[in-house]
């Protein structure tokens, strides 16, 4: 019997705001426990939430980038439950009415394009974090309490694990290039829950859904879905029934493991949040956000490949992060040759970042300096050999390459009136090489170039010397 899979996703993105969604506490990753909290985050008696409007802006960006319909009035609800990391014992979320709905993203799998619908996306606050000590105590860190989240819920329109993988990749890229979230799974700024059901081919109604929460990587998502497809098929083929349940992916075995069986939904007693007045999201505001929306990865890719003539591989490397793509765009905007800029970005700059385990934002290299250096190479002021020295200095200390080259006397010697006498002298002093050259030994010319490079301490323009040497040797 053939089975069809139906896969859905609930993806949480941490929105990249400076402060929390309902309090002025700062948001940053890895701060000391409870240092980024105030009376609101602690759920002290008498406090009220106050919406950080930047959360709307970032959410709207993602809504626009996924062609979603934005609702004109905002509305929040309370989800009630007790847990020590939830100081009010309710989460403020959007249950009855989301921020936006009915969007889509387009994926491509094995050369086939497909639209995956986005059911809705809503804003909510994150909870704090509980940790259990070995001393019998449990600890609560409320730094994360109130960090803004955008939950993107897909339509159940994904039919195999590869499509699921492609959907996540695409969604991540879209959100990443709006700049609304850091989308780092390892830091929790992107969190993936998925669900899958299977049904016999030809059957209309969907099968029983199994959920998997907080998967670590897209690869784990793909593997766990593939495993579930097989497992559920076996259950059905052997006459069993799939249980409504939550399962966990076990990295070591590559299998999913039952975590808990759902017996009716938990009762969260949702009701409208009375402490937050509705906000109106005007068309003007949406237009304003639309016009400030950064270019999508897709748009950039097309420009890189079609306009700049970059190889697909190079374009994709540049587009791995919004930061690197932005850096590249700025370098080109500052006058750099796109191909050279791409080469330097993808080899030297990336190499430096990897070696030093730093990020683009942390280094002293600016797009302007990189562009200036590339211009010096392009116009022959420096050789690519010298360029490596200049680059090392610029990236380490932020030095202006042009000034550095001048100060260090690194300007390439291309002036024939200076080089011609040197060429003559070298040829005069090495009769053997002249002989070799006449006998067709090409190596001879390399030796003579080396001699001149030695004398000029590498500054001579190799192209010019080659030309001059050839001319001189022909004369002999």
């Amino acid at each position, binding site marked *: 019997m053939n089975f069809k899979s139906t896969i859905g996703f609930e993806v949480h993105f941490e929105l990249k705001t400076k402060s929390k969604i309902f309090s002025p506490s700062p948001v940053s990753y890895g701060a000391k426990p409870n240092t980024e909290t105030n009376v609101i985050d*602690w759920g002290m008696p*008498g406090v009220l939430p*106050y*919406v950080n409007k930047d959360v709307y802006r970032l959410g709207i960006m993602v809504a626009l980038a996924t062609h979603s319909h934005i609702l004109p009035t905002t509305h929040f609800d309370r989800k009630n439950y*007790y847990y020590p990391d939830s100081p009010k*014992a309710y989460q403020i979320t959007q249950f009855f009415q989301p921020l936006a709905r009915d969007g889509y993203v387009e994926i491509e799998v094995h050369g086939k394009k497909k639209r995956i619908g986005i059911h809705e996306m809503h804003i909510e606050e994150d909870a704090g974090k509980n940790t259990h000590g070995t001393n019998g105590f449990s600890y609560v860190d409320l730094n994360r309490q109130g960090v803004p989240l955008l939950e993107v819920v897909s339509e159940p329109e994904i039919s195999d694990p590869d499509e699921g993988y492609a959907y996540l990749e695409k969604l991540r890229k879209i959100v990443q290039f709006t700049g609304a979230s850091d989308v780092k799974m390892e830091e929790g700024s992107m969190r993936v829950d998925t669900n899958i059901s299977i049904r016999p081919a030809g059957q209309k109604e969907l099968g029983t859904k199994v959920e998997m929460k907080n998967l670590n990587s897209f690869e784990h998502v793909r593997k766990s879905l593939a495993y579930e497809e097989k497992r559920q098929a076996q259950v059905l083929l052997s006459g069993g029934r799939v249980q409504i349940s939550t399962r966990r992916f076990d990295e070591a075995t590559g299998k999913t493991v039952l975590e808990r069986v759902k017996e009716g939904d938990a*009762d969260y*007693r949702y009701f409208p949040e*009375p*402490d937050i007045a509705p906000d109106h999201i005007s068309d003007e505001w949406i237009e304003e956000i639309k016009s400030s929306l950064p270019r999508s990865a897709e748009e950039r890719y097309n420009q890189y490949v079609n306009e700049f003539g970059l190889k697909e591989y190079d374009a994709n490397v540049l587009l791995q992060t919004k930061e690197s793509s932005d850096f590249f765009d700025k370098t080109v905007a500052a006058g750099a040759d796109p191909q050279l800029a791409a080469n330097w970005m993808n080899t030297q700059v990336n190499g430096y970042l990897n070696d030093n385990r730093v990020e683009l934002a942390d280094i002293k290299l600016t797009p302007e300096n990189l562009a200036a250096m590339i211009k010096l190479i392009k116009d022959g002021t420096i050789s690519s050999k010298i360029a490596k020295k200049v680059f090392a200095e610029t990236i380490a200390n932020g030095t202006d390459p042009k000034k550095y080259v001048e100060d260090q006397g690194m300007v390439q010697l291309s002036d024939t009136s200076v080089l011609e006498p040197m060429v003559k002298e070298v040829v005069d002093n090495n009769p053997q090489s002249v002989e070799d050259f006449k006998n067709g030994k090409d190596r001879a010319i390399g030796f003579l170039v080396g001699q001149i490079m030695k004398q000029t301490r590498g500054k001579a323009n190799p192209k010019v010397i080659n030309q001059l040497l050839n001319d001189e040797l022909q004369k002999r």
Partner: protein
Amino acid sequence: MNYLNEDIDSLNEKLAQGTLSADKLAQDTVENIKKTDEKLNAWITVQEDAKPDEDLDFANNKLAGIPIAIKDNIITKDVKTTAASHILDNYIPVYDATVIDRLKKAHVTFVGKTNMDEFAMGSSTEHSYFGATHNPWDFDKVPGGSSGGSAAAVAAGQVVAALGSDTGGSIRQPSAFNGIFGIKPTYGRVSRWGLIAFASSLDEIGVMSKRAKTSAQVLNVIAGADDHDSTLSTRAVPDFTEYIGKDVKGLRVAVVKEYMDAVDGEMHEVIQKQIDVLKDAGAIINEVSLPLTKYVVPDYYIIASSEASSNLQRFDGIRYGYRAEDAKNLLDVYVKSRSEGFGEEVQRRILLGSFALSAGSYDRFFRQASKVRTLICNDFDKIFADNDVIVGPTTTTPAFNIGSEISDPIKMYNNDILTISANLAGIPAASVPAGLVDGMPVGLQVMAKRFDEGSIFQVADFIERNNKFYEKTPAGMED
């Protein structure tokens, strides 16, 4: 000394003239509270070291150095704030409510926190962890609630003004029972930042005093936009004292049939007399009907209890407040701390609200109640299209005996029938003394459209000047 015959103006005059110092005023106030409160129990915390600010400008600031009472569900930094609950009986806040912040900037003198029904749930101030408050007109009677401590303190002359909070009548009903003025402003007029939430969509901080003008002076200071409360209106706050001393000629006054039908005998006569006074002064009296009045009590108790069940979840024994000592695991911490920390009435409302919100009940109760609430709002809008104010009785009876209703919650809830609608509709409403029935005060309720507290002050002040109830001294305070 007591302030039975004082108000902000009269105290300010003495302070400005130098016949009374702010220090002496503060000391006398504290001493008088200690002396008189043995019989009243109007206070949970008395700040014996109360000290006025220095360099007070009595000429330009009438509130300077005036002792004011604060209901104990309003957060005061470094001063114990309990909401009259065991669960917070040792809670010292680390911040100030917006209203406190504004009163501090106005340099009033803080003398302490007043008794109330636990978490403002009640109509008698009997549901307090710190014991019942007694009515200064008759110590065997309740002062009403939940702002019973604030009302008794003002009526007994312990202070000239007090802050209260009103979710279903908690300012107006005790004001009526104690023969004082008390106003619940428009929802969205006074910041709720720092008010320990009972029902967020209904709660409002207001003022209680013997004279309407005193409340207008305090409301001038505490009202107005605040970034901490997004449900607050940003509209400008008028000078409410400008509505004092006016006549009522041509004012369109609606009298609700269902409200008048709720009172009889002497009570009806006293209220009718006040309406006649307005009529005689040239006001236009229109009889109107609010047929949904019979639904307001259940409607209110569903909405208020639902919100309360969620608002009170934060009192979980984890971060602050009472934690049961013998809790062995997380569930124990929650269940035992809350079972031991909350009083019976609070637990009743949490259960009621949790039920109304639960899956399967939400549509039948909470959603229905929200719809009824919208209809009630619409009815008020219709009345205010043709009328400036609504007047009628604040309560159905004068103050009842302590202990007489505490075992009958439904009877207790039904006491609120005349005050609840203003909270559901978010409109401003006040109670002004109307007269005595069997020796106990009763109040005239005055309601107006949203943000028109001005008309309320105008009518209340007119009534007050006419019946001069403020000249009366509560029986228990005569010596």
